[in-house]
C-alpha cells in the first residue's frame, strides 16, 4: 500500500496540467482504479485483516483525493497568474469624461443667509417681481412726488391705451414683500425675503437687475438694539469670523425711522478684503425701525407693534465673501466664470457643518 501511495502522490506532484491530473485520478481512485480494486479484495479477507486493511485503504483514498484537489488548485492559480501577466492597461489614460455641475453664487449665498436667519426664527417670504406702485412706493411712505422715487431709477411696465391706472413697476427693492407679508401674516412677524430687484442703471458697478434680501421683525418690544444684534450675529456667521464691528450711521429711508446705514470694519490689503479687522469701513446695508405709516399700510396697528427692517445686497455679499470682483459677470453666464465661482451640488450650507468649505 505504501508503494501505491508513493506512486500516485509522485504522479500527482508531477502532473503538468488538468487532463494529466484526471488520468491519474481515474487510474487511482476511479471506479475501476487501483484503490477500488484493492477495496474489492477486502471481502476475501478475514475479519482481523479487514479491520487493518479497510481503514488504511480509506485513508489512502482520502490522501490521494486531497492531493488531487490541492494540485488542481495550484494548477489553476498558476494558469491565472500566467493570464494576469499578459493583462496590462495604460492606466495613465484619462477616465471617461463626466460633467461637473455648479450652483450660482447667488443661489449659494441665498441658502447661506436663509440658514442663518432661520436659526433666528425668520421664515422666507416671497413676492412678485412686477408690482403695483402702491406696494413698491406709496405703502412704503414714498408718495408720488417724493424725490426718492426719482432717485430710484424705476423700470415701469407698459400701460395699454385707455388703462389709466398708474403703471406697474419692476420692484426697485424687496421691501414691497414687507407689506404683502404683513397683510398675509399679521404680527408678530419675522421674515426675510430674498429675490431679484430692478433699477434702470448699468455701469461698472450697477446692473439693471440685482438681488436683495429684506428682513422684517415686528413685535411689541423690538428695538434698534435688537436690530444691531441680529445684524452682528448675521455678519459674523455669514463671513465666518469670530468678531465683527458694525458701525451704525444715521441716514434716511422713507420706510424706516430712525434709519441707519451700516458699515462693517474691514481691511483692504493687496486687493483682498478682510472682515472684522483693519481701519476701513465698508457700507453693507441699510436698515432702521419700520415707519409707523408702513406698519399701518400693512394693516397692523403701529401703536401696538414696532420693529425693524433691513435690506442687504445678496450679490454684494457674495462678492465680498467669495472675492468676486465684477457684478456684471454674475449675469453674463460665462462658463469659465460659472465653473470658477460656482458651488458643488453637495456644498449645502448648514450651520452645523459650516457654510463654506
Amino acid at each position, binding site marked *: 500500500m505504501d508503494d501505491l501511495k508513493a506512486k500516485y502522490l509522485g504522479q500527482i506532484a508531477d502532473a503538468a496540467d488538468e487532463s494529466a491530473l484526471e488520468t491519474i485520478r481515474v487510474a487511482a481512485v476511479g471506479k475501476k482504479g487501483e484503490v477500488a480494486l484493492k477495496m474489492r479484495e477486502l471481502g476475501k479477507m478475514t475479519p482481523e485483516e479487514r479491520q487493518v486493511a479497510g481503514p488504511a485503504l480509506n485513508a489512502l483514498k482520502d490522501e490521494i483525493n486531497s492531493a488531487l484537489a490541492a494540485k488542481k488548485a495550484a494548477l489553476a492559480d498558476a494558469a491565472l497568474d500566467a493570464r494576469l501577466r499578459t493583462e496590462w492597461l495604460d492606466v495613465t489614460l484619462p477616465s471617461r469624461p463626466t460633467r461637473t455641475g455648479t450652483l450660482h453664487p*447667488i443661489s449659494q449665498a441665498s441658502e447661506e443667509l436663509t440658514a442663518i436667519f432661520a436659526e433666528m426664527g425668520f421664515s*422666507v417670504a416671497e413676492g412678485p417681481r*412686477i408690482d403695483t406702485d402702491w406696494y413698491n412706493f406709496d405703502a412704503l411712505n414714498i408718495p408720488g412726488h417724493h*424725490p426718492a422715487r426719482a432717485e430710484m431709477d424705476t423700470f415701469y411696465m407698459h400701460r395699454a391705451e385707455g388703462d389709466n391706472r398708474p403703471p406697474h413697476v419692476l420692484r426697485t427693492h424687496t421691501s414691497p414683500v414687507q407689506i404683502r407679508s404683513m397683510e398675509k401674516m399679521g404680527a408678530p412677524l419675522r421674515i426675510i425675503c430674498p429675490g431679484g430687484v430692478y433699477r434702470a442703471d448699468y455701469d461698472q458697478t450697477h446692473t439693471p437687475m440685482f438681488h436683495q434680501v429684506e428682513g422684517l421683525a415686528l413685535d411689541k418690544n423690538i428695538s434698534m*438694539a*435688537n436690530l444691531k444684534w441680529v445684524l452682528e450675529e448675521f455678519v459674523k456667521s455669514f463671513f465666518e469670523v469670530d468678531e465683527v464691528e458694525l458701525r451704525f450711521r444715521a441716514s*434716511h429711508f422713507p420706510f424706516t425711522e430712525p434709519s441707519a446705514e451700516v458699515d462693517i470694519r474691514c481691511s483692504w490689503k493687496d486687493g483682498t478684503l478682510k472682515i472684522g479687522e483693519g481701519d476701513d469701513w465698508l457700507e453693507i446695508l441699510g436698515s432702521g425701525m419700520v415707519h409707523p405709516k408702513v406698519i399701518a399700510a400693512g394693516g397692523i396697528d403701529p401703536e401696538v407693534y414696532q420693529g425693524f427692517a433691513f435690506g442687504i445686497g445678496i450679490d454684494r455679499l457674495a462678492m465680498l465673501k467669495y472675492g468676486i470682483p465684477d457684478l456684471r459677470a454674475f449675469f453674463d453666464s460665462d462658463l469659465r466664470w460659472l465653473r470658477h465661482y460656482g458651488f458643488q451640488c453637495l456644498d449645502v450650507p448648514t450651520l452645523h457643518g459650516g457654510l463654506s468649505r
Partner: protein
Amino acid sequence: MKFTLSWLKDHLETDASVEEITETLTDLGLEVEGVSNPADRLKEFTLGYVKHAEKHPDADKLRVCKVDTDEGEMQIICGAPNAREGITVVVCKPGMYVPGLDITIGVGKIRGVESFGMMASERELELSDEHDGIIELPSGEVGDRFVDWLAANDPSKVDPMIEIAITPNRPDALGVRGIARDLAARGLGTLKPLTVDPVEGGYESPIKVEIAEDTLDGCPLFTGRLIRGVKNGQSPKWLQDRLTAIGLRPISALVDITNYFTFDLNRPLHVFDAAKVAGNLRVHRAAGGETLVALDEKEYTLSAGQMVISDDNGAESIAGIMGGAETGCTDETVDVFLESAFWDHVQIATTGRALKINSDARYRFERGVDPEFTRDGLDLATRMILDLCGGEPSNVVVAGAVPDHSRAYKLNPERVQSLVGMEIPEAEQRQTLTRLGFRLEGNMAHVPSWRPDVLGEADLVEEVARIASLTKLQGKPLPRLTDGIPAPVMTPQQRRQQIARRTCASLGYNEIVSYTFIDQASAALFGGGDDATMLANPISSEMSHMRPALLPGLLQAAARNQARGFADMALFEVGPAFHGGEPGEQHNLISGLLVGRTGPKDVHGASRAVDTFDAKADIEAVLAAIGAPAKVQILRGAEPWWHPGRHGKICLGPKKVLGVFGELHPKVLSEMGIKGAAVAFTIWPDEVPMPRKSGASRGALVQSDLQAVERDFAFVVDDTVEALTLVNAAAGADKALIEDVRVFDEFIGGSLGEGKKSLAITARLQPTDKTLTEKDIEAVSDKIVAKVTKATGGTLRG
C-alpha cells in the same frame, strides 16, 4: 452739497479739526463723500528770510542767497527776478515734495555752487498760475508754517472743501447754516446768531406782483422789490472764492449773490432785469403751449397747469425752477427786481421732472425750503446787493402769505429707549431738540419751519438718537419667538427649487442667473413679447420684454459661450417667467439646456451628440427629486419651439403638464444662433402635486421570499406604436404578478419590412404566495401576448 470750512465757520463757532467735523457729519447722517484740503500738500513748507543775496559768479541771472530757516542758515541758488536781500519767502528744503513741479527737491550744484533747496513761487505750490517770481510775504517769522500764515492772512487758499450727500429728508442741510446747526446740536461748536435787519425801501416798486387765485396752493407767498441804479459786474474776491471752491462759476455780482444765498441759507432767489420786464409780474398756471428760453439757453414748452411767472410780454420764468433768458441780468443791468418766493414742493417736483430741468432751485424747492425765511432772504440779499452793487431799494412787494406749517408732536422720553434701545436722559433729549430749533412747550415739541420732514413722534426719536449718535448703540439679543429648536422655515415650493438646483448641478449642469428681461424677438420665439410684458422704459432694446420662459436666456447664454469657443455645455436656470404684466402673473420654472456633445472627444469613444434621451433622463431625475409621481403619461403637442416629433410632455392627465423635454425646433436654434445639437427640458415645479401623506413614515416594506422570474418577449408592431403603450398593456396583463416591464430592444425595418418595428420587453414576475410553476408562467405569458396584441395590433415575433 459742497462747502468750505471757512464758510461753515461763518455759522459755527468751533475749534474742531477737519477730521472731527467730517467724522461727525457722517455720523449725523450727512455722509461725507469727499474732502479736499490744500493744507495737506503745503504742511511741510516753512517761512525763511533772505539775509543776503549776490550774483552767481558764473551766471548773470542767478543769485546766491543766504536764507535764514528753522534749520539755520542755508545757501539757495535762485533765478527769480525778485530774489533779493530782505524779503520773507517760502522755503522748500531738500527732501520735500513740490506739488506744482511734481519733484522732490534735493541738494544740487548749480554752475559749481551748492544749493540747498529752493524758494517757491505760487505756481510751484499750486496756489495760482503766478510764476513771475518767488512768493514774497509781507509778514511772518522765520520757521512759521506757511499754511498757518495762509490761514491767518489768505484763508481761502487753505480752505478745506467738504462734500456731503444729502438724503431727501434734509432740505435744511442744503444750506451751510443747516449743516452748522446739526454740528452745534451734537456739541461740536456753537451756532452763531443770524441777524436780519429789514431794509427800508424808499419808494413804491413800479413792478407789482399778483398770484392767480388758482395758483395760491402752489405759490402761497411771493416777495420782491426793485433795486434801481445798481452797478453789476464782477463780484468781490471772497464771493468768487466761495463759489469757485464749491464748483460754481462766478458770473456777475447779482447772479453770484443769488447763488450764494442758495447755498448759504438754502434760500433760492431770482433776479429779473427790470428794464426788460414789461408791466407787472403775474404768477399763474400755464394754459399750455407757452414757450420760454430759460437761463440755460434751452427752449421749454410749458404744459397746462405748470406754474409760470409772466409779464405783459408773456412767460418770463419757470416758477421756482429756472428764470428766463429774456429778463435775465447782464453786466449792463441797472435796475434789478429781486424775487424771493415760496413754492409748493410737490408741484415743483412734478414740473421739474416733466421739463427735465435739474437746477439748484428745483432741487431745493422740491425738497422743501423754509417758508418763514422767504422775507428774511429777500432782506439779506437786498443788503448784499446794496453793499456790492449799490442802488436804491423800493418798498417790498408781497403777494400771498406764509403758509401755515405749524405742528407739534409729543416728546415721550421713554420712546427713545423703547424704539432705539438707547438710554438718553430727558434733559439731553430736550436740549437736542432745542438746539435743532424745536420749541418745547411742556411735552409738545413744535417743529421748526425749516424741517418739513418731521411729521410724527418717531421723527423726534430719530432726531434725538441721531444727534446722540447711533454709534453708541449696543446690540441686544433678539429673543427667540419660541423656546427650543427652531422649526423649518422654508415652504415646500422653496425646498423644491433648492432641491431642483442641487439635482441639476449633480447632473452636471452649470447654473446661470440671467436677466429676466430679454429682447422682443427672442421673447416672441417663446410665446412672449407682447405689449403686456413690455417695459415702458427699457435701458436697451436687448432688455425690452419680461421673459416668457427661461429657455431664451439659456440659449443666449449658450450662444455667447459658443462665441467664446465652448461648443458643448450644460446650463440650467431656476426662476420666474412672466405670462402677463400684472403682479402675480409670473410662474416658477426650472429649465435645463444641453448643447453640442456629451463631452469632449475621448479615448473611450464615449463622446456623442446630446439627444432627446439625455434630456429625458435629466428631467426624470429632477422630477423624481422634487417628489413627482413615478407614473406619468408622456404626450405630444407641446409649444411650437420644440421639435414637433422629438419631444414629450410629462403629464398627469392631458391638462396637467409637469414638464417638457426634447429637441428644440431647428428654426428656433438657428434664430438664437446655436451651433450643433441642442436638447432641453422645462419643469413647472408648482404643478407637481404635493404629497398627500403627512409625516415622514415610508410605510412597511413588502418583500417576497419567493423567487422572481423574468421572461422576454419580442413583438412586431407598426413603427408608429409607442413603446409606453406596449409596456402599459403588458403590465396590465396581471397586475398582481407582473412587478415590472422594461423595453430592452428596438429594431426598425430590415427583414420586418417597411413601416414595422420590433420591440423587445422583459417582464419580471414576482409571486407572493407560492413559487411559480412552468404552467403559471405560461398562463401569464399568454395573457401578456394577448393584451399586447389587442392594444397594439402587433404580433409576437417568431
